[in-house]
């Protein structure tokens, strides 16, 4: 049975519209006009216990709104959601004990105090004994490489250390379900890698379910065998990462090394030219025309070397997020 079950979930909210200038300001003061924004529209999906699922979408696509509904922070306008057998918005204590939400751009730790002080509050609120607190801080602190940092004021920590301390605070009560909203945002490459490693290890050790949004494709490709893609509030893809490439980019990349340079206009006859420099060129060729096109290239051009690959996943996802529909 799915641990997260979402059926036709929608969220509509009003936004005040104001025209520029003094007249617009006065009109806005006396007679406010609202526009209904459909942030999430009829989204449905199921996630099984222990899965790590990537949640992709451009800014404003509806990812964070969906996460807020699944964590019970905001009330849906329509549809149903069940998380660990609970209706999120009821915010029952048993439900809140099972989940966590990490927001990469927000912090829960008290800025002026050491992280350990905030952890003490969290431990008391979640009903952990002093011994359990010590044990979990030791265990998670070691996994995150945070030893010795928890007694320093949060404001004195580096961004990476702060994010790790935020993760520790969010996972102290050992939640079954992790909602992670851009947990690696702003981190340097090393910190990103270590957060990713930690999430993988946490998932394996505790069989936790993870729903992760990130704009860093490396997070998605490293952690998520399955992805959900949301565009303008609607879910447009739910499946494997490889399937995403097949569905949204049914083409292959053809790289050629030529005996002499050719004009781009001539190369364009064989496919969508991605790059052409000197004697090297790179095309995107529709999958169904691949055999025929490769045959033509070999017959009509003087080719020294030729390679066919899948286009980079980052490029495909970028196109999907921009366009929203299969090409």
């Amino acid at each position, binding site marked *: 049975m799915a641990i997260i079950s979402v059926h036709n979930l929608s969220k509509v*909210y009003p936004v005040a519209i104001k025209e520029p200038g003094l007249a617009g300001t006065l009109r806005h003061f006396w007679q406010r006009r609202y526009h209904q924004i459909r942030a999430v529209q009829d989204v449905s999906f199921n996630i099984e216990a222990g899965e790590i699922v990537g949640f992709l979408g451009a800014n404003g696509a509806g990812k*964070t709104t969906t996460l*807020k509904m699944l*964590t*019970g*922070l*905001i*009330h849906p306008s329509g549809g149903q959601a069940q998380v660990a057998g609970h209706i999120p918005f009821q*915010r029952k*204590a048993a439900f*809140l*004990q099972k*989940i*966590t*939400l990490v*927001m990469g*751009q*927000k912090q*829960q730790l*008290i800025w*002026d*105090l050491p992280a350990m*002080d*905030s952890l*003490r*509050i*969290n*431990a*008391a*609120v*979640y*009903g952990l004994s002093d011994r359990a607190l010590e044990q979990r801080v030791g265990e998670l602190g070691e996994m995150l490489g945070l030893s010795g940092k928890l007694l320093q004021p949060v404001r004195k920590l580096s961004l990476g250390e702060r994010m790790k301390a935020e993760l520790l605070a969010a996972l102290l009560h050992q939640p079954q379900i992790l909602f992670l909203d851009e947990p690696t945002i702003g981190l340097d490459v090393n910190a990103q890698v270590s957060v990713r490693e930690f999430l993988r290890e946490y998932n394996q050790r505790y069989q936790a379910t993870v729903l992760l949004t990130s704009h860093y494709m490396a997070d998605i490709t490293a952690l998520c065998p399955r992805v959900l893609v949301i565009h303008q509030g609607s879910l447009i893809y739910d499946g494997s990462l490889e399937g995403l490439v097949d569905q949204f980019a049914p083409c292959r990349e053809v790289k050629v090394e030529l005996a002499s340079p050719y004009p781009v206009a001539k190369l364009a006859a064989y496919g969508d030219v991605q790059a052409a420099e000197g004697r090297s060129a790179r095309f995107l060729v529709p999958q169904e025309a691949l055999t025929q096109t490769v045959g033509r290239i070999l017959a009509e051009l003087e080719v020294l070397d030729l390679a066919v690959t899948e286009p980079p996943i980052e490029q495909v996802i970028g196109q999907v997020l921009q366009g929203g529909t299969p090409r």
Partner: protein
Amino acid sequence: MKPHRIQQQTSDLSGRATLMGLQRARRIAHALLSVYYAYMVEYRAELVLWALSGSLPIILMGVWIQAAQTGQFALSPLEFARYFIAAFTVRQFSVVWVIWEFEREVVEGKLSFRLLQPLNPIWHHFASHFAERFARLPFAVFLIALFFGLYPQAFWLPSWENGVMALIITFLAFALRFLMQYTLAMFAFWTERATAIEQFSFLFYLFLSGLIAPLEVFPPAVRAIALWTPFPYLIHFPASLLVGLPVDLGRGLLVMLGWSILFWGLYRWLWRRGLRQYSGMGA
């Protein structure tokens, strides 16, 4: 199993659950108070300025002593001096700013982290205010001692009964003031500028609480009406007890209880509806 044994076991279980609930509440209270106390004492200079910012009664004391020396008032200049230092003391320990905090948390989406935890956010806010009383205590005591050093003839010691009662009622006044402001803070879910409502209500607080003038100098009709509002019980009631002015203790406590129940009910009603409005902005 016999019915009386089942009843006994059920009663044991419910007793154990209550005990565990109490232990959890004690642990939460201890963690919140100790951490928020640490937070409050982090900035010592700010605490001194906060304590000094509540000096309005000391300023007004000078005005009223001057007026009492030249006119006919219900209190003598010495009683005015004692009343205002008592009002200053009560104000020091009943000052509340939760509406500014709550509004910021709603507008910036920081309330989300509190909503994710199995503890009503009101306890975080209440604990931070309560812990601040202890942090400001030494500074408030220093200011009071300084006042008596400069004006020794105003010094007095309340009877221990009045002192204890004033302490309890100052705490109740703080709790009522907190509840009143927290209820108004709920409007942040709709207006995002709930502090404007507080600024308006502060006008009534200022005049009717006895912060600007003791109720004894009000016209009798105004005083009679004021005594049915919650405001005089926030400053005037505990301050009068501390000074030894006559007060109707039973009526005072009943009016405070009535307003507390009303504001608690209103707060719960607005909280439930407000959560449906919450959009977790910026988060």
